[in-house]
């Protein structure tokens, strides 16, 4: 074997690993005659590394040479590390061989910036174009857009890739300027805007000609590094919320900052990556995308940080006892969604099941409602009256937080045996 290919793969995978997005969802495309591959729509994971993260795409850099000197990045120009680059052919063949063995769903191509953003985009486009036209690859392709790239190149990328992404990385502009003096938010927002425009234009084209080629059918995503600067959770959530206003923005990823360049004094000293905070941000993100919450409801100026000891939905419910208890047999979907212990799936099942008759506690349990949590927030004629009002928000908080302050409520009056 050409030892150099193995060596390059190792280096360029290691340099790519901090990008968290690995999703392969958003496009359904069946196989075309003479081509290899399809996309499934919901995304498929193929493996899980020791850090518990899913491997769906071959996530790789074309090269780790880079012009920029961003404080938070392993590949910054001032780091003394080995620099290598794939040829387009090497990378295309590797993708195809991995795909044929069912190791991956497709390719996630990123790159360090060589010469200029446009020059880099052209090199990356070569790989993606070759895959689609020479190798007839019909699987999933996610391509990173380089900040500062021109509209023409972004447009071309959208014609070959399923998803495009530009990473915001640092949520507040003043922090970005400090950590990455060569970048500004404009250089990120511009390509984001081009992608948005491309998608809107494409929608119109396809209305006229159904055969018009699709543009980035799986939309765009972005990533925010958490904990590398002074931003708080409220800043981050409001930013995400604004990003989700664009219909092309499918996902915002949060990446707990991992100290890669500890020598740089502009960065905070952290011992462990803030995984709990990252997790809470994802939960809050889900509330905005699937539970009809808006950012203002989750955090405001009085509470700029998410409670690390409680998921944001429970925290909201405890702050708003006046919204409870909810009668699961009559309340509408949006209201049921807000009950702690009820997920999207169980909320939908409740709506469907109650057409057949009144839902009792046993029925809710069968549906998958976590009664240990929900009991303080619902009514139904079986429950003796012990809601968040009688129990008090303080009490509910102390028994339902991740590390309970009170012993198991099993010993307390009026717990219904739903302790675990």
């Amino acid at each position: 074997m050409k030892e150099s290919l193995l060596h390059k793969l190792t280096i360029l995978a290691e340099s790519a690993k901090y990008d968290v997005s690995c999703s392969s969802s958003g496009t359904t495309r069946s196989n075309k005659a003479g081509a290899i591959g399809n996309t499934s729509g919901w995304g498929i994971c193929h493996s899980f590394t020791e850090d518990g993260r899913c491997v769906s795409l071959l996530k790789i850099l074309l090269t780790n040479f880079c012009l920029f000197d961003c404080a938070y990045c392993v590949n910054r120009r001032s780091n003394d590390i080995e620099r290598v680059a794939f040829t387009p052919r090497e990378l295309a063949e590797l993708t195809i061989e991995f795909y044929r063995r069912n190791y991956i769903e497709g390719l996630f191509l990123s790159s360090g910036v060589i010469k200029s953003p446009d020059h880099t985009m052209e090199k990356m486009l070569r790989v993606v174009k070759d895959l689609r036209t020479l190798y007839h690859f019909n699987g999933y392709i996610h391509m990173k857009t380089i900040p500062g790239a021109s509209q023409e190149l972004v447009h071309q990328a959208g014609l070959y890739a399923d998803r495009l992404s530009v990473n915001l990385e640092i949520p507040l502009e003043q922090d970005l300027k400090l950590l990455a003096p060569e970048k500004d938010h404009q250089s990120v927002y511009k390509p984001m805007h081009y992608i948005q425009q491309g998608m809107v234009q494409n929608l119109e084209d396809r209305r006229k000609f159904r055969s018009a080629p699709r543009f980035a059918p799986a939309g765009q995503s972005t990533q925010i590094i958490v904990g590398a600067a002074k931003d708080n959770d409220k800043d981050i959530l409001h930013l995400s919320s604004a990003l989700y206003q664009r219909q092309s923005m499918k996902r915002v990823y949060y990446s707990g900052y991992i100290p890669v360049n500890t020598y740089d004094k502009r960065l905070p000293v952290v011992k462990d990556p803030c995984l709990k905070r990252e997790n809470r941000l994802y939960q809050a993100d889900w509330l905005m995308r699937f539970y009809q919450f808006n950012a203002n409801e989750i955090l405001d100026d009085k509470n700029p940080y998410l409670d690390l000891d409680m998921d944001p939905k429970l925290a909201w419910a405890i702050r708003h006892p006046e919204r409870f208890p909810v009668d699961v047999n009559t309340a509408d979907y949006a209201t049921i969604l807000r009950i702690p212990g009820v997920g999207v799936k169980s909320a939908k099942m409740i709506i469907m099941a109650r057409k057949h008759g009144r839902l009792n506690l046993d029925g809710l349990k069968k549906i998958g409602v976590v009664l240990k949590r929900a009991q303080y927030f619902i009514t139904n004629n079986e429950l003796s009256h012990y809601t968040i009002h009688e129990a008090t928000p303080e009490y509910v908080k102390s028994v339902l937080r991740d590390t309970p302050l009170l012993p198991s409520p099993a010993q307390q009056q009026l717990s219904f045996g739903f302790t675990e």
Partner: protein
Amino acid sequence: MMSIFYYDKTFDGLLSVVFDAYKIKYFPQALLGEGDVEPMFMERGHTTVTDPNKSDRVWAALCKKLSKQALNHIHHVWQSERPEADYLIFRYIRKVIDSPHSIETDFTDEDVMSMLQLAKKVSKDTMHLIEFVRFQKTKENIFFSPVAPDYNALPLALHHFIDRFADQQWALYDIRRGYGFYYNLQRVEEITLPDENTLINGNINPMLLAEDEQKFQKLWRNYFKAITIVERINKRQQRQHMPARFWHLLPEMQN
């Protein structure tokens, strides 16, 4: 005293049982295969002869009353091969036929819920196949993978592989059940491997592999290691998403 129907333990047979039961207005309390030992207190036995005319009619009736999803669930539960599955399907179909309106969303009904839960398990198993199949290229240019699903889920995953790998020859072989499928670029055929040397301990004989196969496995193993973020090691989560029972078939989990 129990009433019992005998049938050939095929899916069409089960639907024919439903047809017979409604025809003679007599409903079994247990279903047995032909030649099964009969219980001591048997009231009356009926033997159903599988007949596509009967099963088609029952299926057509179900298609009218059930969503596509619920019809899929019936197939999934059947593929579970669990001993209780056939009688569960029978009870479910009875409820569907007897009720004037659709019962498929009555999640408080025990049978509806049992169907849903078992179907979910089988569908998860199918998903695991789609995720964790690892093809190895043989000298004859066939991409081969042994599999060992808990349920008989391979037929349910076939469609995915046919669509995705349309331009390569491949074969999937269920080592637990001793049968598999081979795709020859045109269609899929069912196969059994008569040659004992093809598989060694449930894995393909290394002698049969293409020359560059080891190279790509090595590249993949290396890649897999390189993208791990050491600061975030969380083996519990890895195990949760990728249960250890699949590891013996995954090249990235071999050292």
